[in-house]
């Protein structure tokens, strides 16, 4: 009985891992093929060719796009954490009128369909002279990173013991000091979680990135992948696309591997308490 249970459990784990990882594995297999081999479905590569990777990295400005993505995602994380931490403190620890309404308003921003914001955002971006600059992306990505960040951090701060703050208040510390000296050190798990979520969101975004940039040097990787082209009109270069996909996904997989423990504990401590 015990053995049976054990085996069933292992099978279940195996199935879960298989389903989760297989498409990524298959992308790797495809990326190692070339020519007409592409159109043969094999479970493992018969011939290994790095030509697709060479194409992706040398043709066009893919490396530049990778750097852009890193910069945009990094800046989005920094900015939304900065704004998120101060707001979370204000929303969780200071009683003032309209607090619930405010929190709900912030949350409602994540109900905005992004397609609906495109035209208005575009006007705004041009008005500020941000068109075709990475700052336009950083600015527009706040729409989806800020509400979630503020919300998760608020619930996290709310659950921290009251005593830590009281002592500081009695010592006459200003709210800014309280945030930076008292709360920040306690918030690392939540910061890692929300930061990673914001990073992934910014790293993956496509629609705004396509609309607000107009040259290859300013584009981010999802757009670069969508724009990967083959040898002729209408030809879809599956090998190159899969190679680029593997390159783009790899950093995220590494980040997830590093932070997986933190992600769970960050959410445990805050976010999902309802």
């Amino acid at each position, binding site marked *: 009985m015990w053995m049976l249970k054990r085996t069933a459990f292992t099978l279940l784990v195996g199935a879960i891992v298989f389903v989760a990882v297989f498409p990524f594995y298959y992308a790797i297999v495809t990326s190692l093929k070339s020519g007409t081999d592409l159109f043969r479905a094999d479970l493992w590569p018969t011939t290994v060719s790095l030509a697709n990777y060479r194409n992706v990295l040398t043709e066009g400005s893919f490396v530049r796009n990778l750097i852009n993505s890193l910069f945009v995602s990094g800046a989005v994380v920094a900015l939304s954490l900065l704004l998120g931490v101060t707001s979370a403190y204000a929303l969780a620890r200071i009683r003032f009128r309209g607090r619930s309404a405010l929190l709900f308003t912030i949350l409602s921003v994540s109900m905005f369909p992004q397609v609906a914001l495109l035209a208005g955002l575009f006007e705004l971006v041009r008005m500020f002279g941000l068109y075709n600059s990475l700052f336009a992306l950083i600015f527009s990505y706040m729409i989806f990173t800020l509400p979630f960040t503020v919300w998760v951090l608020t619930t996290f701060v709310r659950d921290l013991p009251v005593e830590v703050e009281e002592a500081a208040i009695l010592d006459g510390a200003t709210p800014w000091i309280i945030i930076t000296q008292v709360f920040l050190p306690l918030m690392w798990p939540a910061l890692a979680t929300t930061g990673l979520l914001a990073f992934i969101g910014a790293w993956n975004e496509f629609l705004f990135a396509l609309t607000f940039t107009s040259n290859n040097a300013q584009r981010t990787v999802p757009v670069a992948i969508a724009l990967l082209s083959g040898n002729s009109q*209408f030809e879809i270069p599956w090998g190159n696309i899969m190679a680029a996909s593997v390159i783009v996904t790899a950093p995220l997989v590494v980040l997830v591997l590093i932070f997986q423990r933190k992600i769970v504990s960050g959410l445990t401590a805050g976010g999902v308490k309802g």
Partner: protein
Amino acid sequence: MKLFHAFLALGVAAMLVGTPAQAVELSIVSGDTGDGIKVLREILDRYEKDSGNKVGIVVMPTSGTDQFGQYRLWLAAGNSDIDVYQTDVIWAPQLASQLVDLTAATKDVVGAHFPSIIQSQTVNGKLVALPIFTDAPALYYRKDLLDKYRAKVPATWKELADTAKLVMDGERAAGNRDIWGFVFQGNAYEGLTCNALEWVMSSGGGQVIEPDGSISINNPKAAAVLDMARGWVGTIAPPGVLAYQEEESRGVWQTGNAVFMRNWPYAYALGNGGGSPIKGKFDVAPLPAGTGEGARPIATLGGWNLAVSKYSKHQDAAIELVKFIASPAMQKYRTLKTSNLPTIQALYDDADIARQQPIVPRWKQIFLNAVPRPSAATRIKYNEASSQFWNAVHNTLSGDGTAANNLADLEAMLTKLKGRGW
């Protein structure tokens, strides 16, 4: 590159581009792919050297709808960062109000182009874009298989279906179970509008919306041919053809798994490329026609053009750039590199092109028969009209309603869309 230098002399002499007093930076947006972009870059390098101006390429997704939405938005916002747009042949009427009238500036060169193409880019008497290459589909067929079964190249859709079935059944019986008779573009998108227009018009069923704006699609001939096409799906064509765009059909074709394919010229060079299993085993012919009164082979006119944005800060330089890229010398260069069909009549008699890209002179007939989609008649409502048409066809092909019913519905919807006028 040597070749290129030879053209250079020609190009410069022909163009007489005076170096502008001040060098400007221009920006051209194009959704062309791979070689297309590379060749464009080479042409631009040449232009930069001659004019002293700088030109940057903004690359766009290859999907036409992605490009169109983006260009619409950019133009609506008065985006002055893009000077020149590479536009599809059907977009002219929809974007016309935001493009520069090229009539006066190009009156010295338009005579060399095919009048029908120039006509397609003329809206209310304004030439809004200058053509750089054209497109016309044809029927690709497997020479070796037709010979094996002693079949001739089909001239009608009926013959096509019969031959496809004959060869397919024979090959399947011989153990090639992946082979199909005919592949085309059946996905619900602009390409299906092209395919279906060819079926309907080649059977004498009119061109969906006539040049005078009247809606003609709801007729028995159109219904009959759509019912026939529905019969292909799952018999001679794979069920998946309903999700195929150009590249998916070429994938089936190029792995040797199709007897016939409807596609654009680009597939010719690729099919004959190194490592292609069907290299030397296929040829091309005009698309088949229907039978009965008014039936004749029809190919949908495709092709790409260059337009200058009204919001460009350097309109004169941009117009010169457009004229340079569309010039005979540069079109010849492009054709030799990519086998895109030139829009200059004289190039179809060019000896270099005939030698290096023998398909081009042969394509002249096919493309001269090409008919434009009803974009001129429907003007800014073309995309919606086209989407209603391809949805009606796609529904019919998927077995969702009969052709007669779907076309009757389509007529009602188009009438509503038309309102008081297109």
